[in-house]
Each structure stands twice: as C-alpha cells, then as structure tokens.
C-alpha cells in the first residue's frame, strides 16, 4: 500500500470516529440539538441544499466576492509592493502607517465599508480586498528587496530598461514571496467576505449562516461551515495548480 493511500485511510478513520462520537453524544441526549446538532441532521440539510437553486446562488455570490476581493487586493498589493520597493524613501515614510493599518483588525472597518460601498457585493469585496492588500504588499516588498542585487546589476550592464528589469527580473524573482502571500490570502479573502455578509446583505453563505443562527438552526450552520471548508480547500488546490504552472522551472523538491 502506498504511503499516501494509507495516510488517507487513517484520516478517513479519524473522521468516521469523530462523526460517530458526535452522533452518539447527541443520540444519548447528552446535548441539545440547537447547541451541537448532529451529523445526520447536518447531512440531511446538505442533501437538500445541493438540489436547491437558492443555495447555489449564495455559493456563487460568496465565491465571486471572495475571488474579486482576492484579485483586486492582490493586484493592488503587488503593484504597491513594487512601487514601494522602487521608491525606497516612500516606504520609509509610510512604514508606520502601513504597519498600523496592517495590524488593525480590519473587520472593524466593515461598518464603514457598508456606508461607502453599499449593502451589496461591493462592501464585501472591499473588506476582502483590504485584508488581502497588506499581506500582498508586504510580501511583494520583501520579495523584491531579497533579490540578489547582481541579477539586477547584470541586466543593467546589458542595457536593460527599468521596466524590463521589473518585468523580467524582479517579478519572477519575487514570485516565491508572492505565492506565499497568495496562499495566506485565500483564507483572508474568505474571512472578509463572510464577515461582510454576516453583518449585512441579502445573499451569500455568511448571510445564510447569520439567518440560520438567528433561528437556532444549528444543523444548517454546521452544513454551511462544511461547505466553506470545501470551498477553501478547492481554492487552495486551484492556487497550488497555478503556482506549479508558474513555478515550473523549480526543482521538484521545492515545489508545493
């Protein structure tokens, strides 16, 4: 038996034991259903959800907001990181402000974003992007700073322009840092989106969770949490695929 296969079998067993314990506890009446629900109810809800149009509309909304937040935050963050690495002086000036904003729990900005970007998808995208932005900025900045200066110097002696050096040396050289940031950012974009949806709105998995929790429909809350976990895993795998494609040149041992 291969190593990964046996590893997956053991993982499966852990899940099975966990679910059995959960079901057992609920079955024996040790907890009340509105507190912990039980796996059978959660799966019942999931079964009904996957055939309802309403559920998929909400999945679509959350996915769109997350991806838009991720892309907008990443593009702006990478661009800012490059700009700040290029104009070193501006980073020195801005550093305390950047660090303050970076450390600030940005979900506290959610009410402001609602006012600025409306109750619709805009405010969720903005919140997700604001979480992603600073991680990508700092990662890109570090990535560009870490480049072996002689790679850049060698290109300069060849007569390369600044934009050529940015595109052909600095961008690929900082890719490792950019992808490390992107992997973290998937989770952050999801947090921003879900928190935004929970606070106000009409659609999205976050809004479904908020409504279900208000009605003490704990089975649905758990069901949506599972859906979110699946979403996170899928997004992560997609990112790994992209990374492997972009970083094709790397030795096998360094690949994700």
């Amino acid at each position: 038996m291969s190593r990964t296969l046996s590893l997956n079998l053991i993982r499966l067993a852990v899940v099975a034991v966990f679910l059995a314990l959960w079901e057992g506890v609920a079955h024996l009446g040790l907890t009340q259903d509105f507190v912990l629900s039980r796996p059978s109810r959660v799966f019942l809800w999931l079964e009904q959800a996957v055939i309802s149009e309403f559920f998929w509309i909400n999945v679509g909304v959350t996915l769109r907001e997350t991806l838009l937040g991720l892309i907008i935050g990443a593009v702006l963050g990478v661009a800012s990181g490059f700009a700040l690495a290029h104009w070193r002086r501006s980073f020195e000036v801005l550093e305390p402000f950047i660090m303050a904003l970076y450390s600030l729990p940005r979900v506290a900005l959610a009410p402001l974003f609602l006012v600025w970007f409306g109750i619709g998808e805009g405010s969720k995208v903005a919140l997700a992007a604001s979480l992603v932005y600073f991680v990508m900025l700092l990662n890109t900045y570090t990535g560009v700073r870490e480049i072996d200066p002689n790679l850049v110097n060698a290109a300069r002696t060849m007569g390369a322009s600044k934009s050529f050096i940015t595109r052909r040396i600095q961008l690929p050289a900082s890719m490792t840092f950019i992808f490390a940031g992107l992997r973290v950012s998937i989770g952050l974009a999801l947090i921003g989106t879900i928190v935004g949806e929970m606070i106000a709105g009409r659609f999205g998995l976050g809004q479904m969770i908020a409504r279900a929790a208000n009605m003490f429909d704990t089975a649905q809350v758990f069901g949506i949490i599972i859906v979110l976990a699946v979403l996170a895993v899928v997004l992560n795998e997609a990112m790994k695929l992209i990374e492997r494609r972009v970083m094709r040149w790397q030795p096998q041992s360094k690949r994700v």
Partner: protein
Amino acid sequence: MMQEASTTETPAKLSAKLRVEGVSLEFPGGDGRAIKVLNGIDLAIAPGEFCTIVGPSGCGKSTLLSVIAGLLAPASGRCLLDEKPVQVGNPRIGYMFQSDTLLPWATALDNVRLPLEAVGRKDDGRCLDLLRRVGVGDFAASYPWQLSGGMRKRVQLARLLAQEPDVLLMDEPFGALDAQTKLLMQEELLRLWESTKLTVLFVTHDLSEAISLSDRVLLFSARPGRIKEQYDVPLDRPRQIEEIVSDPHYNELFVRIWRSLREEIRLS
C-alpha cells in the same frame, strides 16, 4: 625579452580601448568611517589586449570592474571606453560577475537571449550557436539548477558573447571550477579571444592562469587597492596552455609575481 616590473606609470596617451584615470572609491564602513577601497587607479588597455588583475582578497578587484562597468560611481577619476566616459548599460562592455548571475527561472537558451531582449533584439539562431560553441548546445532547454558549475560558467560565457561586446570584464570566471575543467575553459577562452578582436580585463587568484592567458599582469596592492606592479608576459602567441608551464619565462615570472603578491597578502 622580459621587461622590468614597473611601478604604476601614467599609461601612454596612445589609443586605448579602455582607460581608467585616477579612480578612487570608498565604501561606508560598519562603524560609520569610510573604508578606502580603490586608491588612484590608472590603467590603459590597448584594443585586443588581454590583461589580468591579481591581488589579495578584498583589495578592490571586483569593485574596479563594477566601476568600469558603470555600476559604481567613483569618488574621483573616470573610466573611458574608446576615450568616451563609460555609462552603465553600454552593451559594448560585457561583464561576467564573480557570482553566478544566471536567472534561475530561465532556461540556458532564455538566459543567453537576455542581453538581446534587453535591447529589443532577437536572434535565436545565434544564441543556440553560441551555446554550441561553448559546448552546452545540448542543454539549451535546461534550467541552471540542472547544470553543473562548469556548465553554468559556459552558459554565462555564451550570454556574455551574445551581447556582442568589444570589452570583456571577467571576474574570476573559472575560480570555482575543478582543475581539469578550468584548463579546458582557459584553452577555449584563448581560442575565442584569438579569433576575435576582444579586449579582456580578467580578474583571477590563480597566477598560473594569469600568466598563461594574458599579455600583461597587473598586481594590486592590499586594500586600498592600487596597481603596485605590472608585468608584461613574454610568451609567444598563439599559446598552448599545456606547454606554457614548461617555459622558463613562465617560471621566472611566476616566482617574481608570487614574491610580490605574497607581501601584499601578508599586509592584508
């Protein structure tokens, strides 16, 4: 016949491909005081001349090449290419760094293409040709990590030539190679140089290499680096690397340079 070793004299104002005039430079040291690295370097290299620099580690050899390439501005003095001030990014000057500067994410061929692309040109046929000429034609599609140290040096040499420079600045290009590969590369460099009109300024720690390859050996003093002595190499061209070591001129020159270099190493 062998010329006397001379202390630095102002080079003749005859036509020089590359001229260095009174170049001095200092770096900020750790304690805030400046460290003087280059101390009034004067140098003139004739078109097609092969010049080597030897000197103790840390005396400023790499720094001088960076100044000549235009990457570092000297505190005083200037560098002239064809009697015009050098500027960074002039492809007429090709610089092979002491460290490996191949792009790790680009194949050997893409690395060789780089100097052409940097100035908006494209000539894949010639790039492949150059890779073949330096003996790594079969590895055009390999990434640097898939190549041995010697092969990486060859690719860098191909990249240097792809730029079509008149002047080669080579900073210990064969320093990290095993003895056999080194001999082979020296031989190939000599053949290449003989078949072109290239002017070469070559830094090395290996006296034997310096003598075998060059027309003139420049001996640097301990830091702050200045040219302590110059030696003309009285060996005929074309040279056979394996025959040079048995030439009595070679041995005599080796001993003289080594004695002088040893003093500087002790000082540094």
